[in-house]
Protein backbone atom coordinates (compact mmCIF):
# COMPACT_ATOMS: atom_id res chain seq x y z
CA UNK A 1 0.00 0.00 0.00
CA UNK A 2 1.13 3.54 -0.77
CA UNK A 3 -0.18 5.42 2.22
CA UNK A 4 -1.02 9.06 1.50
CA UNK A 5 -3.59 9.82 4.19
CA UNK A 6 -1.26 11.21 6.82
CA UNK A 7 -3.42 14.29 7.26
CA UNK A 8 -5.94 11.91 8.86
CA UNK A 9 -3.42 9.88 10.82
CA UNK A 10 0.16 8.82 10.28
CA UNK A 11 -0.01 5.11 9.67
CA UNK A 12 3.68 4.33 9.39
CA UNK A 13 5.10 4.95 12.86
CA UNK A 14 8.74 4.97 13.95
CA UNK A 15 9.85 1.65 15.43
CA UNK A 16 10.61 3.50 18.68
CA UNK A 17 6.92 4.40 19.01
CA UNK A 18 5.80 0.78 18.81
CA UNK A 19 8.52 -0.22 21.28
CA UNK A 20 7.49 2.50 23.74
CA UNK A 21 3.84 1.44 23.63
CA UNK A 22 4.71 -2.20 24.25
CA UNK A 23 7.12 -1.30 27.04
CA UNK A 24 4.46 0.85 28.72
CA UNK A 25 1.95 -1.98 28.56
CA UNK A 26 4.46 -4.25 30.26
CA UNK A 27 5.82 -1.87 32.87
CA UNK A 28 3.37 0.93 33.63
CA UNK A 29 0.44 1.11 36.05
CA UNK A 30 -1.65 4.24 36.65
CA UNK A 31 0.41 7.44 36.97
CA UNK A 32 -0.15 9.87 39.81
CA UNK A 33 -2.16 7.43 41.86
CA UNK A 34 0.02 4.85 43.65
CA UNK A 35 3.53 5.09 45.08
CA UNK A 36 4.78 1.65 43.99
CA UNK A 37 7.29 1.13 41.23
CA UNK A 38 4.92 0.49 38.30
CA UNK A 39 2.90 3.61 39.16
CA UNK A 40 6.01 5.75 39.59
CA UNK A 41 7.47 4.41 36.34
CA UNK A 42 4.26 5.45 34.59
CA UNK A 43 4.38 8.87 36.22
CA UNK A 44 7.99 9.38 35.17
CA UNK A 45 7.29 8.42 31.55
CA UNK A 46 4.24 10.63 31.35
CA UNK A 47 6.25 13.53 32.73
CA UNK A 48 9.03 12.86 30.21
CA UNK A 49 6.47 13.29 27.46
CA UNK A 50 5.31 16.57 29.01
CA UNK A 51 8.92 17.74 29.06
CA UNK A 52 9.53 16.69 25.46
CA UNK A 53 6.37 18.46 24.31
CA UNK A 54 7.17 21.53 26.44
CA UNK A 55 10.59 21.73 24.83
CA UNK A 56 9.23 21.38 21.29
CA UNK A 57 6.40 23.87 21.80
CA UNK A 58 8.15 26.34 24.06
CA UNK A 59 6.19 26.01 27.29
CA UNK A 60 6.51 24.65 30.82
CA UNK A 61 5.76 20.91 31.17
CA UNK A 62 2.74 21.50 33.42
CA UNK A 63 1.11 23.57 30.66
CA UNK A 64 0.97 20.44 28.51
CA UNK A 65 -2.41 18.71 28.97
CA UNK A 66 -2.96 15.24 27.52
CA UNK A 67 -6.17 14.73 25.58
CA UNK A 68 -7.72 11.98 23.45
CA UNK A 69 -7.13 13.90 20.21
CA UNK A 70 -7.18 17.42 18.79
CA UNK A 71 -10.98 17.51 18.80
CA UNK A 72 -11.01 16.90 22.54
CA UNK A 73 -8.39 19.62 23.02
CA UNK A 74 -10.31 22.09 20.84
CA UNK A 75 -13.52 21.40 22.74
CA UNK A 76 -11.79 22.28 26.01
CA UNK A 77 -10.33 25.44 24.47
CA UNK A 78 -13.55 26.63 22.84
CA UNK A 79 -15.71 25.91 25.89
CA UNK A 80 -13.21 27.62 28.19
CA UNK A 81 -13.35 30.88 26.28
CA UNK A 82 -16.64 31.22 24.43
CA UNK A 83 -19.81 31.52 26.53
CA UNK A 84 -23.18 30.36 25.18
CA UNK A 85 -24.22 32.88 22.55
CA UNK A 86 -20.76 34.44 22.53
CA UNK A 87 -18.80 35.75 19.56
CA UNK A 88 -15.87 33.92 17.97
CA UNK A 89 -13.87 34.81 14.87
CA UNK A 90 -12.70 31.83 12.85
CA UNK A 91 -10.97 31.38 9.52
CA UNK A 92 -12.75 30.14 6.42
CA UNK A 93 -10.75 26.91 6.64
CA UNK A 94 -11.78 25.51 10.01
CA UNK A 95 -12.51 21.87 10.72
CA UNK A 96 -15.76 20.68 12.24
CA UNK A 97 -13.81 20.24 15.49
CA UNK A 98 -14.06 24.03 15.75
CA UNK A 99 -17.33 24.70 13.93
CA UNK A 100 -19.46 22.16 15.78
CA UNK A 101 -18.55 23.11 19.37
CA UNK A 102 -19.27 26.74 18.48
CA UNK A 103 -22.62 25.75 16.97
CA UNK A 104 -23.45 23.71 20.09
CA UNK A 105 -22.78 26.81 22.19
CA UNK A 106 -25.08 28.88 20.00
CA UNK A 107 -22.12 31.17 19.37
CA UNK A 108 -21.91 33.72 16.59
CA UNK A 109 -19.04 32.25 14.55
CA UNK A 110 -17.82 35.06 12.31
CA UNK A 111 -15.84 33.77 9.34
CA UNK A 112 -12.75 35.76 8.40
CA UNK A 113 -10.80 35.17 5.19
CA UNK A 114 -12.02 32.72 2.59
CA UNK A 115 -9.47 33.22 -0.19
CA UNK A 116 -7.24 30.22 -0.59
CA UNK A 117 -3.46 30.81 -0.48
CA UNK A 118 -3.94 34.53 0.14
CA UNK A 119 -2.49 35.38 3.56
CA UNK A 120 -2.84 39.14 3.02
CA UNK A 121 -6.58 38.75 2.47
CA UNK A 122 -6.85 36.43 5.49
CA UNK A 123 -5.06 38.93 7.69
CA UNK A 124 -7.17 41.87 6.51
CA UNK A 125 -10.34 39.92 7.21
CA UNK A 126 -9.24 38.99 10.74
CA UNK A 127 -8.22 42.58 11.39
CA UNK A 128 -11.70 43.71 10.32
CA UNK A 129 -13.58 41.14 12.40
CA UNK A 130 -11.66 41.10 15.70
CA UNK A 131 -13.81 43.52 17.65
CA UNK A 132 -13.73 44.37 21.37
CA UNK A 133 -16.71 42.06 22.01
CA UNK A 134 -14.96 39.03 20.48
CA UNK A 135 -14.63 36.24 23.04
CA UNK A 136 -12.01 34.28 21.12
CA UNK A 137 -10.24 33.95 17.80
CA UNK A 138 -9.82 30.36 16.68
CA UNK A 139 -7.69 29.64 13.66
CA UNK A 140 -6.16 26.63 12.02
CA UNK A 141 -2.45 26.84 11.28
CA UNK A 142 -2.72 24.75 8.11
CA UNK A 143 -5.90 23.81 6.21
CA UNK A 144 -6.42 20.07 6.49
CA UNK A 145 -7.92 20.08 2.98
CA UNK A 146 -5.62 22.33 0.96
CA UNK A 147 -2.44 22.67 3.01
CA UNK A 148 -2.83 26.47 3.05
CA UNK A 149 -0.54 27.92 5.76
CA UNK A 150 -2.47 30.72 7.41
CA UNK A 151 -0.62 33.80 8.75
CA UNK A 152 -1.16 32.76 12.37
CA UNK A 153 1.78 34.70 13.85
CA UNK A 154 0.26 37.95 12.57
CA UNK A 155 -3.26 36.94 13.62
CA UNK A 156 -1.96 36.10 17.11
CA UNK A 157 -0.22 39.49 17.23
CA UNK A 158 -3.51 41.20 16.35
CA UNK A 159 -5.19 39.28 19.17
CA UNK A 160 -2.52 40.33 21.67
CA UNK A 161 -2.87 43.98 20.60
CA UNK A 162 -6.64 43.86 21.03
CA UNK A 163 -6.69 41.73 24.17
CA UNK A 164 -8.62 38.87 22.58
CA UNK A 165 -7.70 35.25 23.44
CA UNK A 166 -6.21 33.30 20.55
CA UNK A 167 -6.63 29.57 19.97
CA UNK A 168 -4.48 27.77 17.43
CA UNK A 169 -5.53 24.50 15.84
CA UNK A 170 -2.14 23.00 15.02
CA UNK A 171 -3.55 19.68 13.79
CA UNK A 172 -1.85 19.82 10.40
CA UNK A 173 1.21 21.89 11.26
CA UNK A 174 2.53 20.03 14.26
CA UNK A 175 5.69 18.13 13.46
CA UNK A 176 6.13 20.13 10.26
CA UNK A 177 6.13 23.84 11.15
CA UNK A 178 7.43 25.54 14.30
CA UNK A 179 4.73 26.06 16.95
CA UNK A 180 5.53 28.12 20.04
CA UNK A 181 3.07 28.82 22.83
CA UNK A 182 5.37 31.54 24.15
CA UNK A 183 5.86 33.35 20.83
CA UNK A 184 2.19 33.28 19.89
CA UNK A 185 1.03 34.25 23.37
CA UNK A 186 -1.92 31.94 22.66
CA UNK A 187 -4.58 31.07 25.21
CA UNK A 188 -4.56 27.51 23.89
CA UNK A 189 -2.91 25.42 21.19
CA UNK A 190 -4.61 22.15 20.29
CA UNK A 191 -3.06 19.28 18.38
CA UNK A 192 -3.34 15.56 17.76
CA UNK A 193 -0.58 13.19 18.83
CA UNK A 194 -1.27 10.70 16.05
CA UNK A 195 -0.54 12.77 12.94
CA UNK A 196 2.69 14.73 12.53
CA UNK A 197 3.97 13.71 15.95
CA UNK A 198 3.76 10.02 14.98
CA UNK A 199 2.16 8.90 18.26
CA UNK A 200 -0.64 6.34 18.51
CA UNK A 201 -4.30 7.15 17.87
CA UNK A 202 -6.07 8.26 21.04
CA UNK A 203 -3.43 10.86 21.87
CA UNK A 204 -3.61 14.64 21.67
CA UNK A 205 -2.25 17.71 23.42
CA UNK A 206 -3.64 20.97 24.65
CA UNK A 207 -1.01 23.59 25.43
CA UNK A 208 -2.46 26.00 27.97
CA UNK A 209 -1.48 29.65 28.04
CA UNK A 210 -4.71 30.25 29.98
CA UNK A 211 -6.52 28.26 32.65
CA UNK A 212 -8.97 25.85 30.99
CA UNK A 213 -12.43 24.96 32.21
CA UNK A 214 -12.66 21.23 32.82
CA UNK A 215 -14.64 19.38 30.16
CA UNK A 216 -14.72 16.32 32.44
CA UNK A 217 -14.72 16.12 36.20
CA UNK A 218 -13.23 13.24 38.16
CA UNK A 219 -10.20 11.81 39.88
CA UNK A 220 -6.85 13.48 39.37
CA UNK A 221 -4.78 11.91 42.15
CA UNK A 222 -4.59 15.34 43.81
CA UNK A 223 -6.65 17.29 46.39
CA UNK A 224 -8.95 14.28 46.69
CA UNK A 225 -10.97 15.65 49.61
CA UNK A 226 -12.03 18.60 47.50
CA UNK A 227 -15.25 18.13 45.51
CA UNK A 228 -14.18 20.63 42.85
CA UNK A 229 -11.56 20.03 40.22
CA UNK A 230 -8.09 21.38 41.15
CA UNK A 231 -7.41 24.93 40.03
CA UNK A 232 -3.93 24.15 38.73
CA UNK A 233 -2.43 22.60 35.62
CA UNK A 234 -2.38 19.99 34.29
CA UNK A 235 -4.77 18.36 36.78
CA UNK A 236 -7.59 20.79 36.08
CA UNK A 237 -8.08 19.36 32.60
CA UNK A 238 -6.97 15.77 33.13
CA UNK A 239 -9.69 13.85 34.98
CA UNK A 240 -9.47 10.07 34.96
CA UNK A 241 -6.76 7.58 34.15
CA UNK A 242 -4.52 8.62 31.30
CA UNK A 243 -3.69 6.76 28.13
CA UNK A 244 -0.23 5.87 29.40
CA UNK A 245 0.73 3.51 26.58
CA UNK A 246 -0.38 6.14 24.06
CA UNK A 247 1.50 8.90 25.85
CA UNK A 248 4.69 6.82 25.94
CA UNK A 249 4.31 6.24 22.21
CA UNK A 250 3.72 9.94 21.70
CA UNK A 251 6.89 10.72 23.66
CA UNK A 252 8.85 8.49 21.29
CA UNK A 253 7.13 10.16 18.32
CA UNK A 254 8.06 13.64 19.52
CA UNK A 255 11.67 12.54 19.95
CA UNK A 256 11.61 11.12 16.41
CA UNK A 257 10.38 14.47 15.04
CA UNK A 258 13.08 16.32 16.99
CA UNK A 259 15.77 14.01 15.68
CA UNK A 260 14.64 14.42 12.04
CA UNK A 261 14.15 18.16 12.46
CA UNK A 262 11.10 20.17 11.40
CA UNK A 263 12.73 21.82 8.33
CA UNK A 264 13.81 18.44 6.94
CA UNK A 265 10.34 16.95 7.37
CA UNK A 266 8.65 20.00 5.90
CA UNK A 267 10.98 20.16 2.89
CA UNK A 268 10.51 16.46 2.25
CA UNK A 269 6.70 16.59 2.37
CA UNK A 270 6.52 19.79 0.32
CA UNK A 271 8.78 18.32 -2.36
CA UNK A 272 6.57 15.23 -2.60
CA UNK A 273 3.42 17.33 -2.92
CA UNK A 274 5.02 19.41 -5.68
CA UNK A 275 6.06 16.25 -7.49
CA UNK A 276 2.52 14.86 -7.38
CA UNK A 277 1.03 18.24 -8.30
CA UNK A 278 3.21 18.49 -11.42
CA UNK A 279 2.22 15.03 -12.64
CA UNK A 280 -1.48 15.43 -11.90
CA UNK A 281 -1.66 18.91 -13.40
CA UNK A 282 -0.15 17.61 -16.65
CA UNK A 283 -2.83 14.91 -16.59
CA UNK A 284 -5.58 17.52 -16.58
CA UNK A 285 -6.57 17.39 -12.91
CA UNK A 286 -7.60 20.58 -11.16
CA UNK A 287 -4.83 20.88 -8.59
CA UNK A 288 -4.87 23.27 -5.61
CA UNK A 289 -1.42 24.70 -5.05
CA UNK A 290 0.03 27.86 -3.61
CA UNK A 291 3.21 29.38 -2.24
CA UNK A 292 2.02 29.15 1.36
CA UNK A 293 1.37 25.42 1.29
CA UNK A 294 2.35 22.62 3.63
CA UNK A 295 2.36 18.88 2.88
CA UNK A 296 -1.28 18.46 1.86
CA UNK A 297 -2.44 18.36 -1.76
CA UNK A 298 -6.06 18.41 -2.90
CA UNK A 299 -7.20 17.70 -6.45
CA UNK A 300 -10.49 17.46 -8.31
CA UNK A 301 -10.56 14.20 -10.29
CA UNK A 302 -12.52 13.65 -13.51
CA UNK A 303 -15.37 11.88 -11.67
CA UNK A 304 -17.01 11.57 -8.27
CA UNK A 305 -14.15 11.98 -5.79
CA UNK A 306 -15.24 9.04 -3.63
CA UNK A 307 -15.42 6.72 -6.64
CA UNK A 308 -12.01 7.95 -7.71
CA UNK A 309 -10.52 7.30 -4.26
CA UNK A 310 -12.09 3.84 -4.38
CA UNK A 311 -10.35 3.17 -7.71
CA UNK A 312 -7.05 4.32 -6.17
CA UNK A 313 -7.66 2.06 -3.17
CA UNK A 314 -8.14 -0.87 -5.52
CA UNK A 315 -4.70 -0.08 -6.95
CA UNK A 316 -3.17 0.13 -3.46
CA UNK A 317 -3.12 3.90 -3.01
CA UNK A 318 -4.68 5.14 0.26
CA UNK A 319 -6.07 8.68 0.07
CA UNK A 320 -9.00 10.56 1.58
CA UNK A 321 -11.84 11.89 -0.54
CA UNK A 322 -14.92 13.98 0.18
CA UNK A 323 -15.20 16.98 2.49
CA UNK A 324 -12.55 15.94 5.04
CA UNK A 325 -14.78 17.02 7.98
CA UNK A 326 -14.14 20.59 6.86
CA UNK A 327 -17.12 21.72 4.76
CA UNK A 328 -16.27 25.31 5.59
CA UNK A 329 -12.91 24.99 3.84
CA UNK A 330 -14.60 23.44 0.81
CA UNK A 331 -17.19 26.23 0.72
CA UNK A 332 -14.35 28.75 0.81
CA UNK A 333 -12.61 27.06 -2.12
CA UNK A 334 -15.78 26.38 -4.08
CA UNK A 335 -15.49 22.59 -3.81
CA UNK A 336 -18.33 21.91 -1.34
CA UNK A 337 -20.47 20.19 -3.99
CA UNK A 338 -17.79 18.01 -5.56
CA UNK A 339 -15.31 17.50 -2.73
CA UNK A 340 -11.67 16.75 -3.45
CA UNK A 341 -9.22 13.89 -3.29
CA UNK A 342 -6.45 14.62 -0.81
CA UNK A 343 -2.90 13.31 -0.97
CA UNK A 344 -0.91 13.80 2.23
CA UNK A 345 2.59 12.32 2.59
CA UNK A 346 4.65 11.87 5.76
CA UNK A 347 8.30 11.66 6.69
CA UNK A 348 8.14 7.98 5.67
CA UNK A 349 6.73 8.52 2.17
CA UNK A 350 9.33 8.09 -0.56
CA UNK A 351 9.61 10.03 -3.81
CA UNK A 352 9.09 6.74 -5.63
CA UNK A 353 5.78 6.20 -3.83
CA UNK A 354 4.59 9.74 -4.53
CA UNK A 355 5.53 9.42 -8.19
CA UNK A 356 3.84 6.02 -8.47
CA UNK A 357 0.66 7.23 -6.74
CA UNK A 358 0.33 10.20 -9.11
CA UNK A 359 0.89 8.01 -12.17
CA UNK A 360 -1.66 5.47 -10.91
CA UNK A 361 -4.09 8.38 -10.49
CA UNK A 362 -3.50 9.34 -14.15
CA UNK A 363 -4.09 5.76 -15.25
CA UNK A 364 -7.32 5.62 -13.25
CA UNK A 365 -8.45 8.89 -14.81
CA UNK A 366 -7.72 7.58 -18.30
CA UNK A 367 -9.66 4.39 -17.57
CA UNK A 368 -12.58 6.45 -16.30
CA UNK A 369 -12.59 8.56 -19.46
CA UNK A 370 -12.73 5.43 -21.60
CA UNK A 371 -15.49 3.91 -19.46
CA UNK A 372 -17.48 7.11 -19.59
CA UNK A 373 -17.47 7.13 -23.37
CA UNK A 374 -19.33 3.81 -23.36
CA UNK A 375 -21.88 4.75 -20.69
CA UNK A 376 -25.26 6.43 -21.17
CA UNK A 377 -25.41 10.05 -20.02
CA UNK A 378 -27.51 9.16 -16.94
CA UNK A 379 -24.85 6.75 -15.70
CA UNK A 380 -22.17 9.35 -16.31
CA UNK A 381 -24.13 11.87 -14.28
CA UNK A 382 -24.52 9.39 -11.42
CA UNK A 383 -20.79 8.77 -11.35
CA UNK A 384 -19.98 12.44 -11.73
CA UNK A 385 -17.95 11.74 -14.88
CA UNK A 386 -16.78 14.95 -16.50
CA UNK A 387 -17.11 14.27 -20.20
Amino acid at each position, binding site marked *: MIYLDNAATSYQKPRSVRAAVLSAMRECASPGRGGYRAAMTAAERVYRCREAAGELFDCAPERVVFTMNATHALNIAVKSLVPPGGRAVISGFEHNAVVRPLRALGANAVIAGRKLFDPADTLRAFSREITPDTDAVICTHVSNVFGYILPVAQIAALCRERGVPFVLDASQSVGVLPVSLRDLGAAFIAMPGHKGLYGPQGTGLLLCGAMPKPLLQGGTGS*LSRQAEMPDFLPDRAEAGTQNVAGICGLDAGIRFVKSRGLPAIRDHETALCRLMARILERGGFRVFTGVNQSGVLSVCPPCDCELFAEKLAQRGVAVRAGLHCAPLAHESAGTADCGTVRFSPSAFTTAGEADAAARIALQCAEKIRKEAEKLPVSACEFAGYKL
Partner: protein
Amino acid sequence: MYYYFTFRSITGAQRAMRALEQTGLRATLLRAPKMFSAKGCGYALKVRPDRAAAASAAFRSYAVRVEGAYRVDAQGRAEAVAP
Protein backbone atom coordinates in the same frame (compact mmCIF):
# COMPACT_ATOMS: atom_id res chain seq x y z
CA MET B 1 15.88 12.72 60.42
CA TYR B 2 14.43 13.74 57.04
CA TYR B 3 12.68 16.68 55.47
CA TYR B 4 9.53 16.25 53.43
CA PHE B 5 8.54 18.86 50.86
CA THR B 6 4.95 18.36 49.75
CA PHE B 7 3.30 19.26 46.43
CA ARG B 8 -0.25 19.46 45.19
CA SER B 9 0.20 16.99 42.36
CA ILE B 10 2.52 14.41 40.89
CA THR B 11 3.42 16.88 38.12
CA GLY B 12 4.33 19.55 40.66
CA ALA B 13 6.50 17.07 42.55
CA GLN B 14 8.17 15.95 39.34
CA ARG B 15 8.94 19.53 38.38
CA ALA B 16 10.48 19.98 41.85
CA MET B 17 12.50 16.81 41.38
CA ARG B 18 13.89 18.16 38.10
CA ALA B 19 14.85 21.40 39.87
CA LEU B 20 16.84 19.39 42.39
CA GLU B 21 18.46 17.30 39.66
CA GLN B 22 19.49 20.50 37.84
CA THR B 23 21.13 21.63 41.08
CA GLY B 24 22.88 18.30 41.60
CA LEU B 25 20.72 17.32 44.58
CA ARG B 26 19.08 13.96 45.17
CA ALA B 27 15.72 13.21 46.71
CA THR B 28 13.11 10.48 46.81
CA LEU B 29 9.72 11.08 45.20
CA LEU B 30 6.88 9.38 47.05
CA ARG B 31 3.24 9.67 48.02
CA ALA B 32 2.86 12.28 50.73
CA PRO B 33 2.13 10.74 54.14
CA LYS B 34 -1.50 11.28 55.07
CA MET B 35 -0.60 13.70 57.88
CA PHE B 36 0.97 16.05 55.31
CA SER B 37 -1.87 16.04 52.83
CA ALA B 38 -4.91 17.39 54.63
CA LYS B 39 -6.65 18.03 51.31
CA GLY B 40 -6.13 14.40 50.31
CA CYS B 41 -3.65 12.79 47.92
CA GLY B 42 -0.43 14.61 47.34
CA TYR B 43 3.17 13.84 46.58
CA ALA B 44 6.34 14.63 48.48
CA LEU B 45 10.09 14.78 48.05
CA LYS B 46 12.04 13.23 50.90
CA VAL B 47 15.34 15.05 51.38
CA ARG B 48 18.26 14.47 53.75
CA PRO B 49 18.60 17.21 56.41
CA ASP B 50 21.98 18.41 55.15
CA ARG B 51 20.38 19.05 51.73
CA ALA B 52 17.15 20.67 52.90
CA ALA B 53 18.31 24.29 52.73
CA ALA B 54 19.81 23.78 49.28
CA ALA B 55 16.59 22.10 48.16
CA SER B 56 14.53 25.05 49.38
CA ALA B 57 16.83 27.41 47.50
CA ALA B 58 16.52 25.32 44.34
CA PHE B 59 12.72 25.41 44.54
CA ARG B 60 12.78 29.18 44.87
CA SER B 61 15.27 29.51 42.06
CA TYR B 62 13.16 27.39 39.67
CA ALA B 63 9.88 28.98 40.82
CA VAL B 64 8.53 25.65 42.04
CA ARG B 65 5.45 25.95 44.20
CA VAL B 66 5.90 24.02 47.45
CA GLU B 67 2.76 23.19 49.39
CA GLY B 68 4.42 22.46 52.75
CA ALA B 69 7.66 21.42 54.43
CA TYR B 70 8.09 19.10 57.41
CA ARG B 71 10.97 17.88 59.55
CA VAL B 72 10.52 14.29 60.72
CA ASP B 73 12.87 13.01 63.43
CA ALA B 74 14.07 9.46 64.04
CA GLN B 75 11.10 8.81 66.33
CA GLY B 76 8.68 9.80 63.57
CA ARG B 77 7.70 13.12 65.17
CA ALA B 78 6.80 15.62 62.47
CA GLU B 79 7.07 19.37 62.67
CA ALA B 80 6.03 21.88 60.04
CA VAL B 81 8.84 24.19 58.98
CA ALA B 82 9.06 27.09 56.56
CA PRO B 83 9.49 25.78 53.01
